[in-house]
């Protein structure tokens, strides 16, 4: 079959590329956290692409690498919707797609207060081999990471996850607490978890000049997260907990890089998890697309 790629199509390809590369980018300002959500919503009309990766090597097991590709869209000022596509690779066992998640966050109060609640509702359809570790609930532990992919992928996890996100900003500090309840739709008990984080930029005021390494472009923080058992076995017994210092570097008008080193606090936790992420936000994606389509006509 002959590949049809005339000048018009070629110019369309370049225009599409330009639409992706040129539209006004803005700061993907979620702070340095990987697990903890703040009450900050995506700006209406903006689309953020992000990649969140987790890697580790539990004792006596193969090295693994989990990745979530994230597409976050600000539907309105009070509603942010997000799609995740999860995949993982395990040394000696290959790589596989492990499922998707569709999450929605709803800001509940119209104005900023000392504590700002956001309601989070997510549907996830993933399998047991998922190793993105985007939340730790119930009795999740290192055992979930050690099984062979061929067996783990047979386990279906169709779940509804809800979170109450509480966020505050105080004198440059961002403080957030998440309370998690997750229900597997296949007659499993409710599982609970938590995440909390605190972060601060290196400088509160911006410098007048353009710069990549200005102190205000860096944020450091720490987050803690873990499981709280199930509704018939609630508590800390046989649950995993982590503490993770985090760092974010925001290249003004470009991508934001994040890195986090997580340390397991209990015997059921993985001893060490390294996370890194990159995100890039396109401002007013709809307008850019309309401009592109209008220009193509």
């Amino acid at each position, binding site marked *: 079959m002959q590949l049809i790629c005339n000048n018009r199509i070629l110019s369309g390809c370049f225009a599409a590329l330009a639409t992706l590369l040129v539209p006004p980018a803005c700061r993907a300002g979620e*702070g340095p956290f990987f697990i903890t959500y703040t009450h900050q*919503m995506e700006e209406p009309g*903006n689309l953020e692409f992000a990649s969140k990766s987790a890697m580790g090597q539990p004792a006596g097991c193969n090295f693994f690498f989990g990745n979530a590709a994230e597409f976050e869209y*600000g539907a309105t000022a009070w509603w942010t919707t997000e799609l995740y596509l999860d995949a993982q690779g395990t040394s000696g066992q290959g790589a596989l797609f492990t499922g998707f998640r569709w999450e929605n966050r709803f800001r509940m109060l*119209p104005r*900023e207060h000392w504590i700002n609640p956001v309601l989070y509702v997510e549907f996830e359809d993933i399998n047991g081999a998922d190793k993105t570790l985007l939340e730790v609930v119930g009795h999740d532990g290192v055992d979930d990471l050690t099984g062979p992919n061929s067996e783990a992928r047979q386990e279906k996890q169709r779940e509804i996850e809800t979170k109450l996100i509480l966020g505050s900003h105080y004198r*440059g500090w961002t403080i957030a607490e998440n309370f998690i309840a997750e229900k597997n739709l296949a007659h499993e008990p409710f599982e609970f978890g938590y995440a909390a984080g605190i972060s601060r930029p290196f400088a509160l005021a911006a410098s*007048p*000049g353009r710069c990549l390494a200005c102190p205000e472009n860096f944020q450091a923080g720490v987050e803690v997260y873990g499981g709280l058992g199930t509704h018939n076995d609630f508590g800390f017994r046989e649950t995993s907990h982590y503490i993770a210092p985090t760092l974010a570097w925001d290249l003004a008008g470009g991508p934001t890089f994040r890195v986090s080193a997580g340390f397991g606090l209990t015997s059921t936790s993985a001893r060490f998890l390294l996370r890194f992420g990159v995100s890039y936000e396109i401002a007013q994606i709809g307008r850019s697309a309309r401009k592109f389509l209008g220009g193509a006509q």
Partner: protein
Amino acid sequence: MNNLHRTLIAFVAAAALALPASLVERVPATVPHGSNPFEGNPQARQAGKKLYERECSACHGKNREGIGKAPPLNQPEVYSAPASTLFWILRNGSLRRGMPSFAHLPEPQRWQIVAFLRAQAVYNEHDSHQGGN
């Protein structure tokens, strides 16, 4: 025109009348009138310009001219508004009008944006001189 249509039109008209023309007018009168710690500081204005370009220009336009539903910010109503009023708008946004809260920006950065917005007249004057030359 049936009753349902009349009721709908009346409802929309009432809603439109209930919605003041601008966010500046919607700021509660109880907002304390604090002064901008960066007032008159040219470096802060420059930093505010940089922050404006990064945080605000995608919606309000590079030259603050306004785009679509996002209103222009190069108007006297904005640059003559009290600093605390603009600061309040940046902190709270307006979910109804699609403006998000910018409370995630540290307070000094929000004040820097306010310093830039209120120096609009200075910038306009500067721009016109540049254009004239």
